[in-house]
Each structure stands twice: as structure tokens, then as C-alpha cells.
């Protein structure tokens, strides 16, 4: 007997019903976008703290749509950053090394924090690059 023979199915909710549940969330996004425009302050919404049903989550994904940018990070497991059809609204999903979601966020920012390179790292990069250059000048190849 296969799983598909078990007569369990999810109720397909009518669009108005499932959309009702996410109106509050959409309003929060709108509020954070306004705040970003006014004060350059980034906003984050933790999707795991919002009790969304699978259908509501689907509805939210569909409503926000797919934007132009998507990025994949490999850091302590995978992370996906995807721009939604709304510029400045990013869907960020962090997975652990086993592929389990450990955080799911909507980030309202020009670019998500996790993609940015910061000053420390810039300095570090510069140092390492200088080392490379020095290595080449001082003879021998660089590993």
C-alpha cells in the first residue's frame, strides 16, 4: 500500500479565506517598507514565529512573487536569499548542514545583511591580497 492510497488530503481553502490570515503580515511588510524609505532602517520579520498554515504560506509566496535576484550561500549549511517581486523585500531561508530550516525571514532592506561584506572583512581581504602579491614578488608561485 502506498502513501497515496491513504485517504488524507488537505482542504483547499478558498483564496479569500487563506488571504485573510496573511493580511496582518502584509501590512507589517508595508509598514517596514515605509520605515526603510524614511529612515534607512532595515526591518526583519521572523516567519517561523507566525502561525501560518501550509496553504497560507503558499498564498504568501504567490502574492509576493519572484524578483530578479537570488543568491545561494554555503555557510554552516545552505542559505537562500531571494528577492520577491517587491523590490526591497527579501525572502531569506537558512538551512543547517542537514538541510533543515533553522530560520526563515522576510528582510526589508536594500540588500540583506548576510550578503554584505563589512569593513573588517575588507581589511582582511586586503591583507590577504597583499600577502599574495608579496609572495609573487618575493619569488615562487602562490598556492
Amino acid at each position, binding site marked *: 500500500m502506498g502513501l497515496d492510497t491513504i485517504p488524507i488530503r488537505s482542504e483547499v481553502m478558498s483564496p479569500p479565506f487563506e488571504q485573510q490570515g496573511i493580511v496582518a503580515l502584509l501590512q507589517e511588510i508595508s509598514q517596514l517598507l515605509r520605515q526603510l524609505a524614511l529612515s534607512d532602517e532595515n526591518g526583519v520579520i521572523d516567519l517561523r514565529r507566525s502561525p501560518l498554515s501550509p496553504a497560507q504560506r503558499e498564498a504568501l509566496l504567490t502574492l509576493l512573487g519572484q524578483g530578479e535576484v537570488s543568491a545561494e550561500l554555503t555557510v554552516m549549511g545552505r542559505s537562500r536569499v531571494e528577492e520577491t517581486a517587491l523590490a526591497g523585500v527579501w525572502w531569506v531561508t537558512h538551512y*543547517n548542514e542537514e538541510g*533543515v*530550516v533553522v530560520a526563515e525571514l522576510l528582510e526589508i532592506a536594500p540588500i540583506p545583511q548576510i550578503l554584505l561584506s563589512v569593513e573588517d572583512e575588507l581589511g582582511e581581504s586586503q591583507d590577504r591580497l597583499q600577502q599574495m602579491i608579496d609572495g609573487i614578488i618575493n619569488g615562487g608561485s602562490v598556492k
Partner: protein
Amino acid sequence: MKSDREKESGAIVSQREETVLQRLRRQGISRRGFLKFCTATASMMALPPTMAPAIAAALGSATRPSVIWLSFQECTGCTESLTRSHLPTVESLIFDAISLDYHHTLQAASGEAAERAREEAMARYAGEYLLLVDGSIPYGDEGIYSTIAGVSNLEMLRQGVEGAAAVIAIGTCSSFGGLPMASPNPTGAMSVNDLMQRGAIQRRPLINIPGCPPIPAVITGVIAHYLTFGTIPQLDALHRPLSFYGDTIHDRCYRRTYYDQGKFADTFDDEGARLGWCLYKLGCRGPTTYNSCATLKWNGGTSFPIQSGHGCIGCSEPGFWDAGSFYEALSMPTAAATTATRAGVGVGVAAGALSAWQNLHQRNGARTGHQEVKLDDLERG
């Protein structure tokens, strides 16, 4: 954790002086990795996501505290819950960030060596270590019902609490008594808080993390909070961290809309059950149960009981074993209604017969003793 198990006591010191960030960096974790870790931690701790930088800053400087874990009348389910969480996870990183100096299930050492390790840690970090307790403590008959290395649970707890900076009761048994305390409670089992209240052990800041078992992320979340801020989180009247136990399952349940619409499953295999309607009628304890199952979920965020079609049994609430059937609606009385009603009718018949006898005696007495009212009797004498 393996390194913890195998380390010598000297190694404990040097590793403890490392900050959490240093330790993570040493493990090859980048700035992005650390940020991701902090974000996940904030999400797990139910903190606003904007707190991630604060967590990063705090963990950057925090050192690993010593943790002693004592197990009493328990089933090891709490430990299982923790260790079965997906390794390596963000939670496990938190666990990496502490120095677990005694846990008689997890440690390699056994027998007197193990007990010595506990005593050494207690002496060395007196007043600083975190004491984690799972299982309830038998209090009846001077606690003879459970001993470890000849020391009663009660005595071991008393010693452990003395030097603890704070106590975390893991699971329903240590938080509220749990199964061992269920009626008729033959061992006189008590929770840590009960013992503190009656002065059997000293009072220390106490955090209860009830659940049978508790959600692993909650255990690590509370520890992370302690590591991050050096304080215990905000608690409710039952010493539960508000960030995890602030809402009922019912409040955060994705099936709540069905409750409000009056759509309920009547049996576990009817149309309503298949459509995923509210399980209230099937005994769901969601409305009276304060926990995070509906948001944090179980098995790495896969699901939680209600999502898999079974009502909440309220395992993280006090006295849940004795609160009536798990399969009768919360509003349904646990009373023996028929017996009480019959008894009531019986009492009513007896009292009614007595009262009625007196009534009839008075009324019929007046009727038979009636003296004809004549004209002259209408004027007052």
C-alpha cells in the same frame, strides 16, 4: 560534546576562558556563519529578529559556563529529546558553548569517577555553575525511593542547588512533578519548585522548562539566553520563560480559524479530521496549554501533534496526568455526573418528603380544623 567527555579537568579551565565567538571561529565558522547562527538563535528564542546583532555581540564575549545536569525520577526522555535533535544544528552549537561537567547518561566516566567529577565541578565553580535537573524528586519516607551512589536524590539536589547560580528544571517531572507525582504518587514525588517552596532545598533563581519532553530548542534557547545576557529570561508565575510559554497552543495553532468557525472533527477518522478541522472535541488541550509546539514544532521544525492529527495532551501543564481523559473535550466535566445527579435526586426526595409532609400537615390541619366563618366573625373583636 565528545571533547567535553574526554577532557581532563585542566583542559576545562583553558577552554572555559575562550569566548563563544573564539570557539566558533576556531571551528572555522565565518562572520556570515556567526550571523546566521545568531539569527537562528534569535528566532529560536522568540526574540525579535533585530536582536541578532545583540546576541552576536554578547556571545562574542561570553565564556563557557559550567553546567551540571542531575537526573532523578525520570525516563531519560528529556535527554533523548535534546540529543535526538538534528546534529549538528544551531542548538548543538549552543551546547558546544557550555561545559557540561556532569550528566550521568552522556558522560563517559562512570561510578566513583563520575561522582568525583561532579563534586569537583561543584567545588571549583561554586556559585557560578548552572544546575539542570530532570525528573521529580521522591520526598516521601525521607527520599529513600531513589538514590545514586548511595546518595538520595533529595540530598544530591540539596547539595547541587547550594552552589548553583541558577536552576533549570528540564521537563514536566522536575518542573511540576509529572508522571511520578500522578495520583496516588507512591514516592511522594515533588518538583524542584515544590521543594524550594517548602524549604527542603535552598532557593535559587529557577527556570521551569516543562514538557514531556520539552522542545529541544527551548532548552538550548534558555541556555543561549543565559549565555547571551547573563540573566534568566522573563518568567511567568509558574517560572516558565514567557518567550516560549507566553501563548497557548490554541492561540498559535494554525487550526484556530476552524475553532472560530465552529468546524470540528468529531472522530479521528471523519471528514472533519481529514479536512484538518479543529480537534477541540477530541480532547485537544491546546486552549489550556502554554507552550511553543505550534510555532517551533518538533523534529527539526517538521510538525507537532496537532499538525499530525492528534490533539494536544497538555504535557507541559501541571497535573496533566490527573486532569481527566485526553480524549474528552476540555469543557467536558470529569465529574461522575450520573452518580451525582442520582444522589441529588435522592437527597431531594428525602428532603422533599420531609418538607412536604410538614406542609401537608399544616395545610390539611388548617382545612380539617376549619371553623366556619360567619358574619359576626368578619369584625375584629
